Structure formats: C-alpha cells, structure tokens
C-alpha cells in the first residue's frame, strides 16, 4: 500500500494531466466526428448518386483501417513527411493531429449509427414531408434526422464509448495521454505493475459507466412514440 501511495506522490499530477488529455481528445473528437458523421449520413441517404458514392467510399475506407495506422499516418506521414503544422507548439500539434485522426475514424462509425437510426423512421414520414412540398434537405433536417437521432441513441452511445477508450491509441500519435504514462510508470515502478493497470482501467470505468447509464436513460426518454 505504501508503495502504491508513493506512486501517487511521484506520478499523481502527471496521471491527472495525462487523463485530462484523454478527456480533451474525447471531447473534441466527439464534436467533430459527430458533425462529420451527420454530414456523411446525409450524403448516404441523399438523392444525388455522386454524394452517396462518396459517403459509401468514406465509410468503407475509414471504418476498415485500423485506428493505430491512421494515428501513425498522421504523425509519420502528415507531420513527418509533409510537415503538417496546425499549431506552432510541438506538443499541441501532435494533439491536434490526434484529434483529426480520431475524428476521421469515428465519423465513419457515427455515420453508420445515424443511418441505422434513419432505418427506424418509416418511409411514410419522408413521403409526407415531400408531399407538403419540402425538398430533400429540409425534409432531412426537419423530419427524418430528428427522429433518426432519437432512434440511434444507443448505437451512437456505443461509438462514443469506443471513442473514449480509443483515445489511448493517441499514444501512437505521440500524444502524452494516460496509456503512454502507464507504460512509463510500469517501466519505472514494476513493483506496482498490477495496481497501475487497475488504476488506469478504473479511471476509464468511472467515465464510461455513467455515460452508458445516461445513454440508456436518454434512449428511453427520447424514444419516438409511434
């Protein structure tokens, strides 16, 4: 126990700082990938064949590429080869590249989650929207998507939870986040190896479990009565 407490003395501030990085990655990647995923879903249900083809191609490419490879691509190719500089601050630059990588990857999953929500909306809703003179975009915005989101809360929650945990992959993108610190701590405090694992795992559990409960509650509360 003393050993574990001394671990906190030594690394406590860095543990919190690193985990804060994971939470920040989650927040920004969630916002960006949700917007991007929504746009992709609109493309995939649109009447314009070229947009549909683009949406389908995007989803198939990024859903099927391992996240680690997307992250490594960001750092080794975008930064390493093409010298991509979003921020002049070295660490902030990696952090932002990681956000882009996470967003691009999870947008594909959000798109598909939203599309599964679109499938819960009966065809008659779209027909009624068209029949009163709404064209595709207003019909999607006012009638289809509001119902689709409510029908997609559970699958979207699953994507969010996966995203939270996937922020640890930012390690591959040279971001100082919690799994990187975990590796360092285990290296220097091998005596506490098991508890280090458990600590980091529990930090994720503490974040993810309430989100899971919230998702279930929201999915019931916002369900569309038919």
């Amino acid at each position, binding site marked *: 126990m003393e050993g574990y407490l001394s671990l906190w003395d030594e690394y406590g501030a860095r543990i919190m700082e690193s985990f804060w990085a994971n939470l920040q990655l989650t927040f920004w990647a969630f916002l960006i990938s949700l917007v991007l995923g929504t746009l992709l879903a609109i493309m995939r249900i649109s009447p314009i064949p070229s947009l549909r083809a683009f949406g389908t191609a995007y989803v198939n490419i990024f859903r099927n590429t391992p996240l680690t490879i997307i992250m490594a691509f960001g750092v080794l190719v975008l930064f390493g080869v093409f010298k991509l500089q979003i921020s002049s601050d070295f660490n902030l630059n990696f952090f932002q590249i990681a956000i882009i990588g996470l967003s691009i990857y999870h947008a594909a999953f959000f798109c598909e989650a939203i599309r599964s929500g679109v499938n819960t909306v009966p065809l008659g809703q779209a027909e009624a929207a068209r029949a*009163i003179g709404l064209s595709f975009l207003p019909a999607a915005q006012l009638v289809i998507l509001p119902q689709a989101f409510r029908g997609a809360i559970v699958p979207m929650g699953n994507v969010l939870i996966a995203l939270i945990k996937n922020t640890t992959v930012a390690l591959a993108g040279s971001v100082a986040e919690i799994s990187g610190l975990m590796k360092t701590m285990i290296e220097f405090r091998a005596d506490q190896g098991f508890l280090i694992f458990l600590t980091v795992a529990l930090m994720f559990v503490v974040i993810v479990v309430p989100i899971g409960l919230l998702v279930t509650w929201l999915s019931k509360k916002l369900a569309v009565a038919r």
Partner: protein
Amino acid sequence: MKSDHQTQASSDGPIVELRGVNKHYGALHVLNDINLQVTKGEVVVILGPSGSGKSTLCRAINRLETIDDGTITIDGKVLPEEGKALAMLRADVGMVFQSFNLFAHKTILENVTLGPIKVKGMKKAEADKVAMKLLERVGVANQAGKLPAQLSGGQQQRVAIARALAMRPKVMLFDEPTSALDPEMINEVLDTMVGLAKEGMTMLVVTHEMGFARKAADRVIFMADGQIVEQATPDEFFTNPKSARAKDFLGKLITNH
C-alpha cells in the same frame, strides 16, 4: 416566381391531367395508358380490386411514384422530375395517406404548421392561427398540443387532412384514407371528406367506401389490371355497370356485405 405561380392558376383547364401514362414494375404493367382529367371542383372516386393500380395512380400524381412515360400536369404545369420545382408543385397538391404519416416527433399543431412556415414562409403566429382554425374544422382543436401517437386513428387522419389543407392545395389526393381505421372511426373521416367535397374542393379519392362514392363523387372511375375500365356517374356505375369486370367487382361486394 410565386406571383407567376398564382397568375397561371387558370380556372378553365383541368386541375389534374394525365396523358398516356405508363408504369411497369418489372413485367407487371401497373399503369397501362392512363388518360384522365379532373376539373376544378370535381370529386373523382377511383374504385377497383386491390392490385389494380389505383394507389399507384394516386401516388404518381405528386410523383411519389415515378412513371415510365406519358405526362402528368397539375393546373397546366407539367410535373417536374425533381428539385425545387417539384417541391413547389407538390405544395399545391394535398396528400392524405392510408397510414396517416403524421410527423411522429411533432405535436399536432406543429404537424399542421410545418408546411406553411417552412415551405410558404408564413410567420409562426399566423400559421398557428390558420392551423387552429383547420383543426377546429376537423374537430381536433382540443388535441393541438399532443403528439400523434396519443390520438386515435380517426383523429390522426383528420389531422392529416388539416395538414394537407394548410397548404391551400389546388387538389387533394386521398390514398385509401380509411383502410387502416377501425370501423367506428371510418365515418368521422368520411364526414370530414364529404364536408370538403361540398365546399368545392377538387378531390381524387382512392377508396373502398362505396357509400362515400355514392354520396360525394361526381364521377367514379373503375380500374382493373392497370387500366381505366369504366367511367361513369356514381348512379350509373352502381346501378348499371357496363363492363364485365365492374359487374364482377360490384357483385362480389354485394355478396360480401
């Protein structure tokens, strides 16, 4: 654009005209050389056995179904293939569906005001006023704040009629409006429709309700196998059908009821 739209609203020509309309589902010829005119104020009822193409015909008129060839004109304008022009023309054609299709996430009032506000650019306060009047007219004003799922089928269908009327359509299409209703709710919807017919609304109604056809129709169209087999006044059609198909159809109705 809008004023142009209104000045062209000539009252002499037919409101709906179909010329040589054909549609196939694979090998099935669902609409076979359909020619039909509906003049202003006319109430046309389409009868026929299921699978005869009558619903497809009704849905083709605001292009919820595409057609293979022929032309459909609404108040002298050829139905556009897609885009803004099609949306604008659809706004002039009211549609009532068999399964109501009220927007499930919006209140009754919002269902009726959505089109006027978003399509016609009406102010919300004015749209609310118009909508409440229409809801009153169809007898569900006291349900305005509820969601569709909280209403009975008959009430939902009357809201659907109000929603279509809120767009001030030139013609109303009814696609089997009472087929999904419990028997005790059919009359409340039919009464609303009879009221509309009496006020001079141009209507095209696909239905199995012979009573409505007798009471409100100016003309009955009988369809079978994708073709218009017979057209007559309701009196003539029910008492003295000419084609063998119509005689057969009416004969089955009598034995069944």
